[in-house]
Structures are given as C-alpha cells and as structure tokens.
C-alpha cells in the first residue's frame, strides 16, 4: 500500500518535470521579450517597446513575408504532389514498389547538411537555377513531399477502397470518382500533412542557408544573422510570436472540433 502511494505521487511528477525542462527556456524567452533590458538577457521592467520596434522593422517584415510565401507554395505543391504519388504507390503494382515505399522516409532522416549541400551543387552546377527564392522553394518542396506522401499513405491503408468501386458502380467515371469520392475522403490526411509541412518549411534553417544565396533572407536566417550583434530583444519578441501563434492555432482547432462534435 505504501509503495503504491509513493508511485502514485512520483508518476505524475515525472511528466511535470519533463514539461518544465521543455518549457523553461521558452517561458524565459517570453518573459524577457517584455523586459526593458537592451540585450534581452535579464529582467528590468515591463515594456512593449521591442514589439513596436519589430513592427517598424522592414528587414523582419520582409523576412517574415518571404518565409510565409515559401511555406505556402511548399504546402500546396508538396501536399498535392505527395497525395498523387501516394495514390500511385498505393494503388498500382509495378516493379520496385516495395522498395519505394520503404524508402519514402529516407530523405527525411538524411542529415540536412547533406541534403543542403547536394541541392546547392545540383542547383548551381547541374540545372543552373539561381540561388535565392526559387531555389529555396524547390528545396522545401523536395524535402516536404515525402512527408505528405507518408501521411497520405497512412490514411490510405485505413480507407475502404470499395468506395471507389461503389462510385464506378453507380455510374461515375474515373475522374468524377476522384473528384467526388477519393479526394474528399483523403482530404483530412492532406490537411494534416499541410499542418505538418508548414513548420517544417517555415523554420528550416540548414537547407535554406545552403541555397539562399545572397540577399534572400528568410526569418530563421534573419534571426541567426542577428546573433552577430548578441542576443537582442528582437529574437525574444520574434520567438514569442512564433511560439504563441501556433498555440493559439492549436487551441482554436481544438475548440472548433469540440464544437462540431457537440
């Protein structure tokens, strides 16, 4: 009895500890973003000055817009390409299908420096795409498409494929079946993959750094470049925004889902 009492106390404490370790740096970052200390490294007094500063900061705004644009294009292209590839891989039997399926995740586990270096050589020496916006976008699509394929394939394994046959049986041709049945049924998986791709693309630093060239600054690259001037409050404020916005998003989605069920 005593032992189980102990366990009952220790077990809930452990996850708490893990959460504290995970969140402590983030909480400190958020706190310091409101601190008037000029280097953003200790608490002095409350201020919103740094937030007003970045609103007026053209470099931050440009980098943010660039990152969001790249992420948006990546989400659309990678999700669609991934879904189509997954469909082909799932539905059609051909030589090497098994090998392809098992190696989908390979590009994702490859060290980013390798991917980045390879893309740099590929773009500059093989197909002559100028480094910068286009190169970054293509690079992001390259490493995000396998993720979309993986997510959509996972969903496909749990779909009742007689839905497609039923549609054909009721008089629909292939295209109509795709439009009316297959895509709507796969849509949740495509949305999920888009939700996963967004942060991947948005905060990728290593690969982007390789193919960015000069003058194309994404938000992560901008933050990194600011480190030359020491940890400035700008990093704290951007960090806070990037942490808080997704949390609001997640909470909002949770709330909406609950509402739909009720």
């Amino acid at each position: 009895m005593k032992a189980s009492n102990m366990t009952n106390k220790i077990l809930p404490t452990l996850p708490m500890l893990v959460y504290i370790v995970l969140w402590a740096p983030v909480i400190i970052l958020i706190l310091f973003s409101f601190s008037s200390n000029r280097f953003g490294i200790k608490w002095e007094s409350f201020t919103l000055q740094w937030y007003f500063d970045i609103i007026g900061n053209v470099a931050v705004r440009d980098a943010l817009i660039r990152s969001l644009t790249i992420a948006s294009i990546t989400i659309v292209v990678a999700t669609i390409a991934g879904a189509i590839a997954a469909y082909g891989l799932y539905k059609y039997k051909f030589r090497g299908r098994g090998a392809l399926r098992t190696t989908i995740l390979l590009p994702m586990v490859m060290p980013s420096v390798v991917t980045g270096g390879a893309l740099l050589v590929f773009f500059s020496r093989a197909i002559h795409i100028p480094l910068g916006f286009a190169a970054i976008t293509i690079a992001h699509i390259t490493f995000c498409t396998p993720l979309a394929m993986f997510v959509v394939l996972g969903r496909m394994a749990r779909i009742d494929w007689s839905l497609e046959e039923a549609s054909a049986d009721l008089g629909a041709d292939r295209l109509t079946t795709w439009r009316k049945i297959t895509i709507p049924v796969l849509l949740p998986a495509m949305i999920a993959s888009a939700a996963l791709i967004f942060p991947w693309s948005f905060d990728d630093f290593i690969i982007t750094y390789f193919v960015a060239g000069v003058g194309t600054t994404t938000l992560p690259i901008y933050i990194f470049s600011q480190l030359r001037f020491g940890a400035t409050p700008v990093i704290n404020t951007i960090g806070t925004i990037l942490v808080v916005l997704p949390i609001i998003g997640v909470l909002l989605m949770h709330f909406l889902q609950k509402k739909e069920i009720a």
Partner: protein
Amino acid sequence: MENREGIPCVELRNVVKRFPGVTAVDHVSLKVEQGRIFSLLGPSGCGKTTTLRLVAGFETLDEGDVLIDNKVVNDIPAHKRNCSTVFQTLALFPHMTVEENIGYGLERKGVAKDKIKKEVGEVLELMQLGGMEKRRPSQISGGQRQRVALARSLVLGPKILLLDKPLASLDRKLRKEMQTEIKQIQREVGITFLYVTHDQKEALTISDTIAVMANGRLEQVGTPNEIYETPRTRFIADFMGASNIFLGKVIATSSSQEVQLETEDGLKIIAIKNKGIPSEEITGISVHPELIDILPEGTDLEGDNKFRGKIIEMNYQGDFTETRICLNQVDRFITAHLSNEPGQNARFSLDERVLLCWSRHSSKILIG
C-alpha cells in the same frame, strides 16, 4: 418444384478467372432467372465473390462470356453496366448525407435536381428511412445503413442487383430481420438479385435458387429445398450442416431403386436413389441429424437402418438437443437431434445405450 421457364437475366458461359497461383473461377456456367433471388453459396475462397465481381465488371475475365439481358458485356466497364452492387462493407460515402449518397447515381446520370429529390424521396419512403435525409452514414444505425446501401442501388432501377455478403457485419437478430426485409423488398421491386453469402441458413432463407460453389467450381444448383434435402456431393452435404456422411460402394440394387451400400468400415445402409444415377457413380450417402430417431436400446421395430450405440455428448440447443452417439459395431460417431418438445416421453442421458434408426428415404445419395 417451381421450375417455370424464366428468361435468363444474367448468364455466365464457361467463365474462367485466374489470379496469380489460383484459378478463382473455373469454367462456371449458370443462368439467373429474371425477377428471382439467386444465391452463390460457399466457404470463403470458393470464388463466389469473384464471380459476382465479374458480373459487376470489377474484374476482367480470362475466358468465357458474361451476359446481362442476353448481351455480352465482357468489355463494358463497371460504370456502364446495367447492374448495381451492394458491398460487404456497404461502401457508403462517409462525407455525404444519406440523401446525397442515394442521389449520387442519379446525379451521375445527369438527372435534373428536382427529379433526383423526388426519386430519392420515394425510395427513402420505400426503405422506411424518412427523417434520415440529412444524416451522415456514421450517424445512423447498422440496419439503416444497410437500407441506405440498398436504396442507393435500387434508385437507379438496375436490371440486376448484386449483393456481396451484405449482412455479414450485422448481429444475429438484425441479420434475420434484414433477410426478411430484403426478400420483401425484392418482391416489391421485382428486380433480379444475385446474392453472395457463406451462411447456409441465410441462403436457405433468402433464395429462390442456390448455387453452391467450391474451389471455383459450381457443385450444385437447385432450390433451397433440393440443396438441403438432396445434396449431391459430400462437400455440399457437409457444408449444409453437419450431416452424417457415410462413404461406401453399392453392393446390391433392387428394382424399386432401392440400393444397399457398404461403407468403408463395413456398415450396411439402405437408401433410395433417383432414376438417373448409375449405381457405379454413387460414392456414399448422407443423413441429416434431424431425420435420425433415437430410441431406447431395447426397442424392437421394423426399420431400414438400425444401429446401436452409446450417447457420448449432449448439447442443448433450445428446441432440440444435439446428441453424439458412438456406434457399438465400428468406431464411428453419428450426430442426431433429440427433439425437446413437451410430451416427448423418452428422455435420455449421457452414456446411455440407445438404438438409432432412420428411413431409407432419409439416406441421401452422394455422387462426388
């Protein structure tokens, strides 16, 4: 038996379908009469579903012809064939309402919106699904889903409705209800039903004609009555319900089509054979458990087939008790059903020695 001349609605001629390593359908020829319920019955893997899918157009055949309404449809794709399928999983579109599901086929045909609404409304009423129009398949009960699947197919007015084990996922009680309902609906709409099932009872309940399949071949085609009471092969006898099967050879024939068989272990059994069957082809007989009488050991009576034995197992089943008896003469078990009707005077208990007896008419000839 009812054997009126019907026009074949679906016909298979020497149909063969091979999958890598297996012949799923092996030279099957059959005719499905207009306006009837025709069942394909067999254990899983016997080729019944593949046969159905060949008719629907989901599989391409390797040899032979499939005819719907006297026209060869071998090369016509599924979405252009005049038949509709109710799937085992039902395959209701999860992202559409009941109404949208049922209207899907009409929409594909290009029927006008208001006409779709009217026809969907009619079929909803026929299926007693009023009030469910705006629900999703996940928000209605199993029986209702079943009816939506039927409605979705029937609303198109197909020449033939193909049903692939549609009741397999329902519980026993609901399944019985739906069997009756399907029969009623069929009578009401008059469309030919081709029904695939592995459940013997279900096939007996629902069908006008049953075709029993095994290993891709047709074993026997007949009315439920014929299939149950005069199974032609050992496989069917076994499949149709734990019949007692005796393999043996004919040793004596009398003029009145009465034959005497000797089984491999030396039992002599008297049976009646049909006119057409030569004695050499007979490979054994089967007897249904409910046709065997169990009597106290001392009973003295005239009878065709009499054997003594000991009761070794009794399983209460409600209206009867399934009783296994070990014969004295040879090491063989016979299953008989002991009626539990009130007023049945002879009561037996485990280990009791009894007399088994059945008429020559209860012994059914097997030829394969």
